[in-house]
């Protein structure tokens, strides 16, 4: 594989509180190649959004990066002063957030917002910026971009607004896009349109995408590789196909099993048991102030043994996946 575009190594994000420090992201490492889409899945509170925020340098204080490093094309981002980071954000990293309404300024037309972003990051004239903005709107699938240019965000529907946000993220041809739950606020039919769009843009522009979502279906459709996060750590990371069809970590196994799938319904007549129970993981994810020692998943794990509550497992390569689980420590396939 070519030189990674983004490299995250042993990243830790902490929140100092009056009752001690909470570690929300705990020593995670991954990399993304140019043009690759890396999905990050996990349940609420797993630390996936914080990982994205740490990369774009927008962690809300008191949250802070407490260790590790983030490199974009060799440049260290985590130690950059605020002003320099501000220039990289938007220029080399684009961001798309969940709620398309709060990502746009309601007092400016979408044209003004696009032109402002383009002029901030690129050395072009006002007229060039305008034509680039119109071209971008067309590219993200907004019909009649010239006439929509002077409309305000409230004139657009949710799906159309999210397209505008994507156009904004693309303004300066960034190398990396961090997309945090880009389709969660949208209806399924619109969601499918946005996924297709993101995928096409990443392919056409060779842009790497960090796609953060809780929806495994979106990941399956979009990502090349996926990282499964649990309690601030990466439980398993590998090619999408392998993680979905042959998950190794007991948490990934449980997560896959608990997703309802459209069943190929058996012929009527098989009365009861025509509704198979979903696999369920007992309990819920621990709170940050009570992360168990050893493997964070061990209290809920059906396959735990004595080693799991004492030592934290490090990711081990099994086949194409990296899995942080003691089950695979000795075997090493």
């Amino acid at each position, binding site marked *: 594989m070519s030189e990674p575009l983004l490299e995250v190594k042993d990243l830790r994000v902490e929140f100092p509180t009056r009752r001690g420090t909470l570690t929300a992201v705990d020593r995670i490492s991954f990399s993304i190649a140019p043009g690759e889409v890396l999905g990050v899945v996990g*349940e609420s509170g797993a630390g996936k959004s914080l990982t994205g925020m740490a990369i774009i340098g927008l962690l809300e204080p008191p949250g802070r990066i407490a260790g590790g490093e983030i490199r974009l094309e060799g440049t260290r981002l985590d130690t950059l002063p605020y002003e320099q980071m501000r220039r990289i954000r938007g220029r080399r990293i684009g961001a798309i957030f969940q709620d398309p309404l709060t990502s746009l300024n309601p007092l400016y037309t979408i044209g003004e917002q696009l032109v402002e972003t383009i002029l901030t990051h690129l050395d072009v004239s006002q007229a060039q910026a305008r034509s680039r903005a119109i071209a971008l709107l067309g590219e993200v699938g907004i019909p009649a971009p010239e006439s929509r240019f002077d409309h305000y965000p409230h004139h657009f529907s949710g799906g159309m607004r999210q397209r505008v946000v994507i156009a904004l993220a693309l303004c300066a041809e960034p190398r990396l896009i961090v997309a945090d739950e880009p389709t969660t606020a949208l209806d399924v039919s619109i969601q*499918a349109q946005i996924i297709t769009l993101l995928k096409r843009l990443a392919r056409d522009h060779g842009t790497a995408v960090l796609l953060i979502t809780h929806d*495994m279906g979106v990941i*399956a459709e979009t990502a090349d590789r996926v990282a499964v996060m649990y309690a601030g750590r990466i439980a398993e990371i590998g090619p999408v196909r392998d993680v979905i069809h042959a998950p190794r970590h007991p948490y990934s196994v449980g997560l896959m099993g*608990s*997703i309802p799938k459209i069943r190929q319904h058996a012929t009527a007549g098989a009365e009861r048991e025509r*509704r198979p129970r979903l696999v369920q993981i007992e309990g*819920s994810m621990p709170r940050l102030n009570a992360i168990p020692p050893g493997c964070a998943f061990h209290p809920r794990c059906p396959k735990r043994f004595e080693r799991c509550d004492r030592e934290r497992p490090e990711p081990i390569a099994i086949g194409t996946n990296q899995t942080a689980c003691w089950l695979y420590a000795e075997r090493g396939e």
Partner: protein
Amino acid sequence: MQNAANSGPLLRLTEVSRDFDVSRPWLNRVLEGAPHQLLRAVDGMSFELRRGETLALVGESGCGKSTVARLIVGLYTPTTGRIEFDGTDLATPAAAGLRRRMQMIFQDPYASLNPRWRVMDIVAEPIRVLGLAKSPAEIGERVAELLVQVGLAREDREKYPHEFSGGQRQRISIARALSGSPEFLVCDEPTSALDVSVQAQILNLMSALQEKLGLTYLFISHNLAVVSHVADRVGVMYLGRLAELADADELFAHPKHPYTRMLLDAIPDLEMSGNARTPVAGEVPNPLNPPPGCAFHPRCPHANERCRVERPAVLSHGTALVACHAVQEGRLSA
């Protein structure tokens, strides 16, 4: 279950519509000549709910599915049409005692539980209001029983909602809904605020309770995969109207209405079969100004002149009910 012997449908909606007044304020109307404006959220819905079944209503945001739920439990009154529960019109005085036989579970377990009440009081409220138990000891015992039934502990009676996670809160909501011993539960997106692994716990709990207590569910959801797991029959709504209503097996195996086909096609595919999906263009139109004829015609690949002018009636087609000219005329391949 005093009426279990009765074999008619438990609930019947006949041509139910509900309008909301979304006009500008009076002064604007006078000064600017702005007209009265009505939004028809539910438009001529008719369906029946059989005893002991789960009927799911699905559709995108703004299609009126939650309004139907609220109409049934009486949080809204229908503008026109009739809602009958166990053969009695809910608008008549004779229906006063019927409401206690139905309960509702809401979407957001953070907003639907009073943060200043203990779980004991939350779950006991219907018992007290309906006078199902007299002495405090009896009420306490009943609450403990309900909590254990939904997978919580007796001791949780003394806690406040903030001490629980989202999934546990939804269990409290279910315990509260069950405390009045209802036969019929209206569940409005009961799992959409929850994480998948917790959603699985709640869905499993709901089907276990249905089997044990013989409950009837009206299950409102936008998630077709969830619906395929819980529903016996599925109704698909579009812009306040019923597009298709069929047995779950039939609907998922042989969807008929073009909108149903589109919805099924839009679900992200976990199998990664690599099937090229055709994301349907366009969005749900503004309900203030719905298109004439079939409401779906601007997005429908099969629309013709008739679809643009004539509203399709809900007609039976095989075992399903479908509102589509193309299906009735046999223009659509199966």
